[in-house]
């Protein structure tokens, strides 16, 4: 029997993986992947609450929005990554520290 807790567990694992990926990877693309994991973990939560909770269709609609936004965000982030590569010949995010205080 697949219960709400199973969904939440999968989502939490995905979220934590995403966060750990963002916090540890120096590769820009890797960080983007982590972001996708985090977003999808959140999506699974939304879907699960729409199925087991009282959210109904709303949760699925918001999940659709998140997917669209994630696509847009990935497009922008990839453009930044390409530009960054043009300027620094690398995509190591540790090199991008011009905005430090």
């Amino acid at each position, binding site marked *: 029997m697949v219960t709400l807790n199973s969904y939440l567990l999968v989502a939490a694992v995905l979220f934590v993986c995403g966060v750990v990926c963002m*916090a540890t990877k*120096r590769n820009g693309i890797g*960080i983007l992947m982590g972001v996708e994991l985090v977003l999808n973990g959140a999506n699974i939560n939304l879907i699960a609450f729409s199925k087991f909770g009282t959210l109904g269709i709303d949760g699925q609609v918001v999940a659709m929005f998140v997917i669209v936004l994630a696509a847009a965000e990935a497009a922008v982030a990839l453009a930044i990554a390409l530009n960054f590569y043009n300027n620094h010949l690398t995509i190591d995010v540790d090199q*991008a520290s011009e905005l*430090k*205080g």
Partner: protein
Amino acid sequence: MSPENYIQIGTTLKWLLTTAWLLPLVGFMIEILGGYWSDRTSKTPAYIAVGCIGAGFLLSLVALFTWVDAADMNAWSAFTGSESQAVAHAEPADHYAGEEHVHADDHAHSEGGHAEAGHGHDANAHVEHHDQPNNPLATAFSGTYYKLGSFGTLLVSLDYYIDGLTVLMFAMVTLIATCIHIFAIGYMSDELTTHYEDHQVHTSDGKHFHRNGRFYRFFAFLSLFCFSMLGLVLAGNIFQVFIFWELVGVCSYLLIGFYVERKSASTAANKAFIMNRLGDFGFLIGLMILWTWFGTFQFANTEPGTNAQPGLFQMIRTAEGDLETVGEGMDKVALIQGRGSNKALVVEGDKLVQQQIPYWLLIAAGLGVFAGCIGKSAQFPLQTWLPDAMEGPTPVSALVHSATMVAAGVYLVGRFYPMFTPEVLLIIAYTGCITLFIGATIAVVVTDIKQVLAYSTISQLGYMMLALGVGGWMAGLFHLITHALFKSLMFLCSGSVIHGCHHEQEMTKMGGLYKKMPITCWTMFIGVVAISGLAIPLLTLPGFGALSFSGYHSKDAIVASALTFTSLNPVHGLLFFVPLITAGITAFYMFRMWFMTFFGKPKDLHVYDHAHESPSVMTAPLFVLAFFAAFCAIGGEGGPLAKLILSTEPAHVAVGFSESASLSFPSHHQIHANHATAGAVALLVALTGTLLAYLFYGRQVVDPGKVKSQFLPIHQFLKEKWTFDELYDAMWVRPVHVVSSWAVAFDKNVLDWFLHYLARLTVGIATMDRRFDELVVDRIVNVFGEVTFSAGKSLRAVQTGQLRQYIMFIAVGVVSLFVMLFVFLPR
């Protein structure tokens, strides 16, 4: 005169005189506006001015004849109706007395009876009415042009008041003004240029001052002056008189200061204006008293009917001309009358009583108005401005400072005569007496030809005041007219001499000029004889009286009035002897001037060689004025001029009036009785003066220089003009300087100190305030700033730019938030 006729004649006179009055104003507007923009070498402004005043003269003449006709004067009866001078003398008083006594008390009723009485008169049949009062209001016309404002029942308006005196003054002023305007075309011709060089003004680089010619401006001011003077004469209330009085003063100021770049001229203009202000201060006080107690400024309201508001003269005098008083000392009051049988009543408590004014206030009002006359007519003690006023061009001196403006003071005393109490009249008499003596004595020693005439004017004005003051109302105004004519003549002659001698005014540089300028010399001779009061004794023409010029008759009348007054009041003997002696001095200084100027050897050949007779535009007015100076008073006191004046005489004068046993004024009858004596004595004195002048300056039997050195202190005293200027300097100017130096000291030591103290105090407070600002306020603000800055600085280290680190912070932050939620939030 029937009532309809009365209204019709009144309207005619009103329009004639109003037009004559306003024409010069129109002229002034055109000249002052047009002249500025037009050609400086054009004589058009002069022609406009002459046209305006000339037309005014013709209108005045028509008005004069209209009035004489309406008043049924039959002015020429002296020549046609009587054979001897004695009858001619007796006739005027009788004539009017008989005529007026019919309607002495009720004006409206009298209109019908007037013509009747006038027609069938017979000089001898009315002798028993000799002392009957005159009723000038019956032949006067009053009315309102425009109401300026009303305050309840009180009314301020522009009025007119036309009687014999008004039309006579109009004719006199316009005649003289016309002559002087024409004369001035010649005299002022050197202003017809765009490059006038004033030889008396030096610029800082030592050259003469150059300016535009001001021909148009001169004539514009003359026109404005004529307008003001005529307005003064036509004015129907005392307040309006005051307005034009000031306007005349302003014109005088503008004309004296015509050569404004000359320091002496601008100073003289100021002096004249300020001296007049002193008198006008009294005038204003008088006006306030009258306004408060009578509630009207109008002279008299001659409107038929008895319900209209009465004028001042009607309120203070009964129909018979009496001044009714009650009480003694300070409690004395004068009763105020109503129109006709109506009484002026006021509610007091629960009953009606007759309105009244404290007698001393009436005296104060009279003295106040007279103070104005003192200023305007250059009487003692305000006489010092007139000689200085000779700084103006000579036509101005002739018109403004001898013939008309200075006569305004005498005119006003004459016009306002019913309001003067006997005490005021006595003061007027003494003022005139002092003035005439001072003026004459100074005239003996001055050597500037215009100054002689100026002091002579002061002296003659003193004669007029004296005559008015001793009850010789007719004599004073008679002399006003004759003097205006012969004095303007002499001033124009002196102007001709000055013009001919290229602006040389010192008589010590003239002499022998009769060959060079015969017309001026002999016209001036007529004026000199007239003012000296010479006559050929014992030679009388039927109806003409003694063979003499105008001045003899008028001065004769004055001396007769003075003699009668003194014989009634022996205490005031000076009032007869001073003018009598001065008559001799007058003849002396006048002939002295004439001899010094025209006879003897030329004293300055340069002046003599360049002297020339003036052009005909200047000599023609001399002929006209000489004619009038000689013949205007023809017939003496029975002649048309005297009769015209007499017809306007206030009701109370003819009968003689008295204040108390010690002060009584002569009646016509009494004056007439003294006439022969006074005339003979005055003539004798004048002849003596003439003879002395002839011996001194004509024949030079006695050397004036030796006499001068013998009486050097007196000569010096007179030369310094009785040291009046120095006296006023010591009395007013220097005390003012002392007081102002005190004020300066006070200012510097006390006020300035206080101000400086305040300033220092302010600086001290400001310094403390600054310290507080710096040490307290600024410090608090700085602390805030520093704390913010250091906080920011320390937080700066967090911003490493390491993306992964930020994510770690977020993760740690979220986890710690959750931990805190679990720990602190109650479940």
